[in-house]
């Protein structure tokens, strides 16, 4: 999504002050947020990723969701092991924490 065009749309809506423009702005904000989430990948690991694996993950994400995708990396020791990737509504969870949660749920 082009940031300049988003700004332009918001500016037009504010200046026009059409009836219900606040609701339109709110809906547009939600759409922008969803689009931003769809183009943002959050990668969580229990320990920092080695550089080569980090590059591999970046390449795979770019291949799957396009080069415009932004990436956030975070270290969460609570995951115990493995990695969890969230892109919009897509979740790839291979963490030990999720496996243990599934195991606990099965009991």
């Amino acid at each position: 999504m082009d940031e300049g065009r988003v700004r332009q749309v918001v500016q037009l809506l504010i200046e026009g002050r059409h009836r219900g423009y606040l609701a339109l702005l709110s809906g547009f904000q939600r759409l922008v947020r969803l689009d931003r989430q769809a183009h943002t990948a959050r990668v969580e690991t229990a320990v920092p990723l080695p550089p080569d694996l980090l590059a591999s993950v970046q390449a795979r994400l770019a291949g799957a969701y396009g080069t415009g995708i932004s990436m956030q990396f975070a270290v969460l020791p609570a995951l115990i092991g493995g990695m969890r990737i969230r892109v919009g509504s897509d979740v790839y969870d291979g963490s030990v924490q999720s496996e243990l949660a599934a195991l606990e749920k099965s009991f």
Partner: protein
Amino acid sequence: MNALVLLAGQQSGGQIEKITRTFGVDWSHLLAQIISFCIVCALLYRWAYRPILRVLAERRKQIAQGLANTEKIKAELARTEAHRQEVMLRANVQATSIIEEAHAAAARVQQQETQKAIAAAEQIILKAREAATQDYEQMLAELKHEVGRLVVQTTATVAGKVLTAEDQRRLAEETAKQLPS
């Protein structure tokens, strides 16, 4: 024969006359007394003896009637006694029948109550078994849940310590492989 009688009469008349003179009998007074006595007898017979006889006859009749009534009463009493005996016999038979019916009814009621009690007991046992089974299943589920929680907790505690760098890498690579190419 007649001469003898007359002679005897003369002789006896002489004797009677002698006796009357000896005892001082006055024939006129004697005759009057006899007549008075007869009149008294007639009056007594008319006004005393006949009513007494009549009363006695009535009394005799009443006694006879009383005796007859007594016989009647005895017969009636005998009939009443027989009737009483018959009524008592009938009542005895009826009472026996009623008692037997009561016994039968009591037996039926007892049987019904016993059946009800057995059904209620079976129902209670069934409910108790169901409750016990439910409790057992609930306890089993809770136990499984608790065991699972402990296993997960222990595994989480242990896994964080035992996972090597190689393990972490392998796990991350497995997740990376899930990404679409």
